[in-house]
């Protein structure tokens, strides 16, 4: 079992590195540098304005710390066929999950440390906490997180409840209470309570797990869900195979399709438009980027940064739409339809131009809000339009044609 875990972990890590390499090669990372830069700039300005303790300081610190402790799940690396092939090994899986638990600690701990580090200047000035207080609380959070992971391991064995009470909920209540006490009155409380819950969970781990029954279906679907979230995150930056996104009907958006006439040359526009609206992946991507862009444009009052943000984000949405075309082209049925490749490209271009136009209009509103009706805002908006036209009528058709010509589609 130890060997199985090691094998899986190695494969998992190779996979992760592959994606990380792709992310850091991609031009999408530029957007995040700009975003982090803008946020950092805003944060340091904001810190400069705080001169004395704020009323909201302590509740904000508690909320952020509470949220960061929820980050990170146990990575079991279970796979679908396990429930058939490894069923006989059920007893030995306990060791496997122990290894999984140990491995899963790293990321939450790093997250807790980084957030505490970033939060410390704010906690120091606005909430009146000393550096020692912050360190004590951070250590306490780490133990709480360890207990949370233990509870997740109990859940694999169907033991997430004890006499009708949800363990995770109870622990969260403990966490909130200890955080409040720590931040307002006596900082070591989080550490003390965290340590106690951890020791109890750890000591009883084996007993609790053995008294339960391993919930294969649940555990595997939980792990699939977790991997899906991770991959969806990577998918923001690069193509990840095997990310099946969720489909929602969104009937109230049906009016968007009314403009599409049911004639043969619109066959693919019919499909693309519905796919874009209903596939969470693509509409989600568009919404996220558009909202981030609008917020940034509404906050930043530097002309050049706004110009870059406007152009970059329109390009990015166009760029990120491309995989959707490829996804549809992988469906075998579309190759049997008597529709030419040229029509497919034209239809996809129509969709992307429409989507980018919506984004462009929203960003224009944000720009007018910040810069008013001025030459600067008109320049930014015109630059956005130029990128839109470039992506829609030049870049996209060429890229798609190259794709169709390369494969036998």
């Amino acid at each position: 079992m130890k060997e199985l875990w090691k094998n899986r972990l190695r494969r998992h890590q190779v996979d992760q590195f592959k994606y990380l390499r792709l992310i850091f090669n991609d031009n999408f990372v530029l957007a995040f540098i700009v975003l982090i830069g803008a946020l950092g700039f805003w944060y340091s300005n904001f810190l400069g304005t705080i001169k004395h303790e704020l009323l909201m300081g302590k509740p904000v610190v508690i909320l952020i710390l509470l949220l960061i402790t929820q980050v990170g799940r146990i990575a079991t690396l279970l796979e679908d066929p396990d429930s058939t092939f490894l069923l006989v090994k059920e007893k030995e899986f306990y060791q496997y999950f122990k290894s999984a638990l140990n491995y899963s600690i790293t990321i939450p701990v790093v997250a807790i440390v980084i957030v505490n580090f970033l939060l410390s200047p704010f906690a120091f000035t606005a909430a009146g906490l000393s550096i020692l207080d912050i360190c004590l609380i951070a250590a306490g959070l780490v133990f709480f997180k360890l207990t949370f992971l233990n509870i997740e391991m109990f859940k694999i064995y169907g033991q997430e409840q004890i006499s009708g009470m949800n363990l995770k909920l109870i622990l969260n209540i403990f966490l909130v209470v200890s955080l409040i006490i720590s931040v307002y009155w006596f900082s070591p409380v989080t550490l003390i309570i965290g340590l106690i819950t951890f020791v109890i969970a750890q000591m009883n781990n084996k007993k609790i797990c053995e008294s339960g029954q391993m919930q294969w279906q649940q555990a595997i679907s939980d792990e699939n869900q977790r991997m899906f979230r991770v991959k969806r995150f990577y998918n923001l930056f690069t193509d990840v195979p095997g990310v099946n996104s969720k489909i929602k009907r969104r009937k109230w958006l049906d009016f968007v399709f009314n403009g599409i006439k049911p004639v043969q040359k619109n066959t693919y526009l019919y499909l693309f438009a519905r796919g874009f609206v209903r596939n969470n992946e693509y509409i989600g991507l568009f919404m996220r980027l558009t909202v981030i862009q609008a917020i940034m444009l509404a906050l930043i009052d530097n002309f050049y940064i706004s110009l870059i943000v406007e152009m970059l984000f329109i390009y990015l949405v166009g760029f990120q739409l491309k995989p959707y075309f490829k996804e549809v082209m992988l469906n075998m049925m579309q190759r049997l339809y008597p529709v030419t490749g040229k029509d497919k490209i034209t239809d996809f271009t129509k969709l992307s131009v429409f989507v980018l136009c919506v984004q462009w209009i929203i960003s224009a509103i944000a720009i007018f809000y910040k810069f008013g009706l001025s030459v600067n805002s008109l320049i930014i908006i015109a630059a956005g339009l130029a990128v839109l036209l470039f992506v829609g009528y030049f870049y996209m058709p060429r890229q798609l044609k190259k794709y169709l010509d390369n494969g036998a589609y």
Partner: protein
Amino acid sequence: MTLEIKELTGGYGQVSVLKKETFTVEDGQVVGLIGLNGAGKSTTIKHIIGLLTPRSGQILIDGMSLHDNVEAYRKKIAYVPEMPILYPELTLKEHIEMTIMAYGLDHDKTWENANELLKTFRLDNKLDWFPQNFSKGMKQKVMIVCAFMTDARLFIIDEPFTGLDPLAVNDLLNIVESKKQAGCSVLMSTHILATVQNHADKFVLLNHGQVRADGTMDQLKDKFDMKDANLDDIYIKMSNEDL
């Protein structure tokens, strides 16, 4: 409608699965394509519909190859794959709409056909469902509806009888029969020999990518020299020839 396959050699990548395969499907004929797993049934079908390109040999529909006129060739064929492939983001109703658009069919007339088929397969109350809510058999029925509502002349069905309930199998056979009466041709690959024996006019027996024998039931009995045999016996005899 006639389908002619002449000396077809092809397969995936460098591996030739099919070796000089030759057979024809005539007007108004139902032909059963029969062979063991890996004999080349699905590969043959993929070549006919143009998902794979032959290494050598010809595939002609009414004397026309895929290369001559892609769109006209494709309009003549309707295909039901072994594994149903649907668009995850379209509802059942929209799949039908899209097929109508893609084939440039008459909207109202095709919907009439489609409604009849939907009723036959008890799908008429599921028009707004997404593929993810369908079982495998239901997905297969959707594929059948989308294929048989077109005015294609050649229907190719890959393993139609697995996954369908007995009632649906019966309904499908009736539809095949009526298409045959209308002068269309049907090519189906299957392992369910008893069913195909009663419903096909002609059989093509594939073994290792070659046509071992083809013809009507009587012709096959002669070829294998088995007087009172049924298709099962012939099939087993063919399989044992390798040993």
